[in-house]
């Protein structure tokens, strides 16, 4: 082919695609960006085309309806920020609770939930700044702290998907409007959710941090502190009421990453061996509680299966009563007909655990297990899973306060925590203490005060960090009471 013919062959494609770009630009097609919200310039809010002065979120990717924010109408506007827990806060319920408490003559409330499942402080901080600029809130509530490693893992996944030649091509194609139009055309109706592996297969997710040392974990959580600080200071500059919450976690979920530095390999081997000896002592019907396998963890979806009426006749496990007017046992959990087989398999073990109805032989066996775990800890003093298991044995042997300390330490030492812990909640409390103008909603403390012995469990929680829906409503009552406190009472 002569060079001239090569030009003739390519020219129609060049002209056609240039025209397509022009037409798409005239039609107002915009690129959505490929950063999945990590780019500080990603646009989380866009003017609502259907209503003058209103806004619509651009953050749910088809998985949930986008949130429409009407123009200000004189009500006290409260914005909620955070991950999936915040996303589950029912704005209508909270709004009604706030309005019920408002003083005569004071404005009504408008609660807007900007929580998004999987968001950690990196993306919450970007959304927060944009919402401050565009939505003119009176009050901002930040409830974030479970997702720092969830978000970090996802960011790593994005990097993996966008690395290599294909990733470079996608990045380059991102400059073309036709590419974005094709994305809109090809995007699955409910986002890419169908592509996700089941939660019980998430070992790969935990394995992302298999090389993390505890120092790296601490360094990563420093980012959390910086992001929170940015948000608090931005709220202050804007002159809004800034509320930050500690997050409620389930101490009865084992840590996710238990790595030790390579230099401690021999000590780790001895630690693991002692753990194995301990597990060999544990009665068979309690063994599942000592497991950290993904298939032995309860997940959100385990409580919300399609109802199976045949389960209505089965007797569910009996857990513990709660104080402070909160329903205990499993009264706040979804209906048992919706529980998965995994819930039915694991809850009886928790019933036995809380009842502590051990025979003399079983108690002796747990004492032996406890001894092995103490020996394991001497080999690797900061081994998260050993701390967790010592929490279980301490509780079974009757020492609930030691158990709570072990559980809290296990969560603190987790190299890739997927729930708030002493570090994150401690950060929240410290930042609030340094800033008198920040209001601290200490949700963890409020809930622990109601939990028997301060030990929160599956009565309230679905997994490591999600409250049952009805427990969320109880928390909203607390939050409404907190937000409604008159200034002079604070």
């Amino acid at each position, binding site marked *: *082919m002569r060079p*001239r*013919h090569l030009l*003739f*062959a*390519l*020219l*129609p*494609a060049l002209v*056609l*695609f240039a025209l397509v770009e022009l037409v798409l630009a005239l039609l107002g097609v915009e690129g959505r960006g*490929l950063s*999945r*919200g990590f780019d500080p310039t990603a646009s989380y809010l866009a003017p609502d085309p259907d209503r003058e002065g209103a806004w619509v979120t651009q*953050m*749910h*990717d088809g*998985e949930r309806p986008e949130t429409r924010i009407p123009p200000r109408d004189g009500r006290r506007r409260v914005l909620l920020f955070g991950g*999936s827990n915040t996303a589950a806060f029912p704005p209508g319920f909270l709004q009604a609770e706030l309005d019920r408490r408002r003083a005569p003559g004071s404005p009504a409330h408008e609660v807007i939930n900007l929580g*998004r*499942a*999987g*968001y950690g402080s990196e993306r919450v901080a970007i959304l927060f700044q944009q919402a401050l600029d565009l939505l003119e809130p009176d009050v901002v509530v930040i409830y974030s702290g479970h997702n720092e490693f*969830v*978000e970090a*893992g*996802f960011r790593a*996944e*994005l990097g993996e*998907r966008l690395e290599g030649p*294909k990733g470079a*091509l*996608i990045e380059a*194609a*991102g400059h*073309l409007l*036709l*590419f*974005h139009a*094709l*994305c809109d*055309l*090809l*995007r*699955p109706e409910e*986002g*890419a*959710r*169908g*592509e*996700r592996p*089941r*939660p019980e297969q998430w070992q790969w*997710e935990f394995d992302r941090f298999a090389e993390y040392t505890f120092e790296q974990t601490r360094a990563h959580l420093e980012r959390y502190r910086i992001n929170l600080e940015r948000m608090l200071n931005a709220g202050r500059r804007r002159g809004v009421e800034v509320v930050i919450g500690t997050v409620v976690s389930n101490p009865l979920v084992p840590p996710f990453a238990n790595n030790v530095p390579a230099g401690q390999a021999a000590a780790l081997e001895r630690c693991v061996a002692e753990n194995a000896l301990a597990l060999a002592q544990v009665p068979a019907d309690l063994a599942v509680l000592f497991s950290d396998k993904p298939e032995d963890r309860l997940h*959100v*979806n385990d409580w*919300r*299966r*399609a109802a199976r009426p045949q389960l209505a006749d089965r007797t569910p496990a009996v857990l513990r009563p709660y104080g402070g007017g909160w329903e205990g046992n499993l009264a706040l959990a979804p209906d048992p007909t919706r529980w*998965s087989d995994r819930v039915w398999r694991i809850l009886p073990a928790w019933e036995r655990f809380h009842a502590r109805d051990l025979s003399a032989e079983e108690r002796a066996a747990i004492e032996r297990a406890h001894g092995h775990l103490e020996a394991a800890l001497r080999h690797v003093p900061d081994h998260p899973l050993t701390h967790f298991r010592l929490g279980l044995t301490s509780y079974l042997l009757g020492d609930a306060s030691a158990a709570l300390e072990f559980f809290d330490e296990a969560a603190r030492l987790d190299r890739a925590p997927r729930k708030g812990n002493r570090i994150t909640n401690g950060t929240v409390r410290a930042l609030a203490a340094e800033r008198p103008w920040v209001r601290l909603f200490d949700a963890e403390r409020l809930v622990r005060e109601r939990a028997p012995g301060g030990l929160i469990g599956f009565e309230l929680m679905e997994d490591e960090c999600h409250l049952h829906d009805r427990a969320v409503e109880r928390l909203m009552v607390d939050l409404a009471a907190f937000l409604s406190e008159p200034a002079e009472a604070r």
Partner: protein
Amino acid sequence: MSTQVPKRPSWWAEFALFLRQRPLLWLLPIALWLGLLAFLAWSAVQTPSSPYTYRLDF
């Protein structure tokens, strides 16, 4: 016998002739370009916007 040198067809005429006579040669880049973009777009939308997608139908 004419000594007149045959006039070379204009650039546009040559281009038009090419379009008429060799449609596959200019349609192919369009198809390839569109196909590549569609493949990249499809790959891009397979990545969700958040790690959690709480499917309730497991």
